[in-house]
């Protein structure tokens, strides 16, 4: 089986999920909509593959700074390569030529990070479409349940709070003109 994986970037770290139930064409059907809403059904269809927590607040801040610009930070590239990379070649020597032996495909929520990852991880095929976005909605909704003991819902919220303050403060501070960026 080739297998579809899903990448969810959280304030606590990067999470990779595996979509185990094969019938993904039905994702947009009413049936799967219900499954996405139901935590018990969803956790049968999607399992946690692995989770890479951020080392510290600085690590998390640099990750979101990169991610918001559509850049895959080294931590994310390493994580995806280690988990899904077809070859163990370090760096970005060969682009897509390596015959993706593993056939792993990675579902992402936004095309920019998909492009960045497929350039940096040899043999990785990236998907960003209605199906992956739907599945990732489910991953976001049931994140605490899917990661289990690694992070509690309270841990996730604390991570969001800390990271949002750090990110927002840096945005306001790094406004070079000190003028406001008024919108029209």
């Amino acid at each position, binding site marked *: 089986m080739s297998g579809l994986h899903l990448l969810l970037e959280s304030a606590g770290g990067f999470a990779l999920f595996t979509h185990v139930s094969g019938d993904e064409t039905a994702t947009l059907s009413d049936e799967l909509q219900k499954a996405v*809403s139901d935590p018990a059904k969803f956790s049968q269809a999607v399992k946690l593959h692995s989770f890479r927590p951020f080392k510290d607040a600085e690590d998390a801040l640099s990750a979101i700074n990169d991610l918001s610009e559509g850049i895959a930070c080294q931590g994310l590239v390493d994580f995806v390569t280690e988990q899904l990379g077809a070859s163990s070649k370090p760096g970005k020597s060969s682009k897509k030529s390596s015959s993706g032996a593993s056939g792993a495909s990675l579902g992402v929520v936004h095309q920019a990070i998909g492009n960045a990852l497929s350039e940096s991880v040899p043999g990785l095929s990236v998907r960003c479409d209605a199906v992956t976005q739907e599945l990732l909605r489910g991953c976001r909704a049931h994140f605490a349940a899917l990661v289990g003991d690694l992070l509690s819902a309270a841990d996730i919220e604390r991570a969001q709070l800390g990271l949002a303050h750090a990110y927002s403060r840096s945005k306001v501070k790094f406004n070079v003109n000190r003028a406001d960026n008024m*919108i029209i």
Partner: protein
Amino acid sequence: GGAGGARGGAKVIIEPHRHPGIFVSRGKEDALLTRNMVPGESVYNEKRVSAEGADGEKVEYRQWNPFRSKIAAAVIGGVDNVHICPGAKVLYLGAASGTTVSHVSDVVGPTGLVYAVEFSHRSGRDLINMAKKRTNIIPIIEDARHPHKYRMLVGMVDTLFADVAQPDQARIVALNAQYFLKNGGTWMISIKASCIDSTADPNAVFASEVKKLKGDNLQPKEQLTLEPYERDHAVVVGVYRPVKKQKV
């Protein structure tokens, strides 16, 4: 309900509003209130009122001004359901300096959460400072047009409120809902007619905005104007991806 004395000994009676988490003071003039999460402090110089709770404990409330908050105006205008209640997780687009956000933070309380998105840095500074004392507010200084930029900071929410006053606001709401609003979740949008089209009839503008929202699975439930608090403003409340009823 608890009766208590406000400053100066004026007699004020505080009652819970029909909407959970919102209160009303009955006195010389009725006023909308929220229970202050940070007793002893006002956020924007709004009045505070104290009363004794059921267990004799002092509880402080803050007045919520409908001229300064569209949600307060909608509540007084008789909106059927605001869907902002204790424990709710709310994504708030167009948070500005956070005056209304602070009341939403009071309403959802310590078990709820408000993700407050504001793009303007000037307002954003005030928002961040206010949020320092209210840990159920997650301040996000970013463009609501690009939810992917703040996707790491936001979880799935029960309610999405938008007061962005942008011509493409229907699209902004649809995009954010797609990322963060759960199936069957509620959305509420404030539409300022002149921000969409300053020459058209306001009712025509509201109708065309509602049509756009419907096209993105944002099913409207009710609509009300904010007279007399705001001119040519409407609030539309609806459900995202309503869970389909079984055919009988």
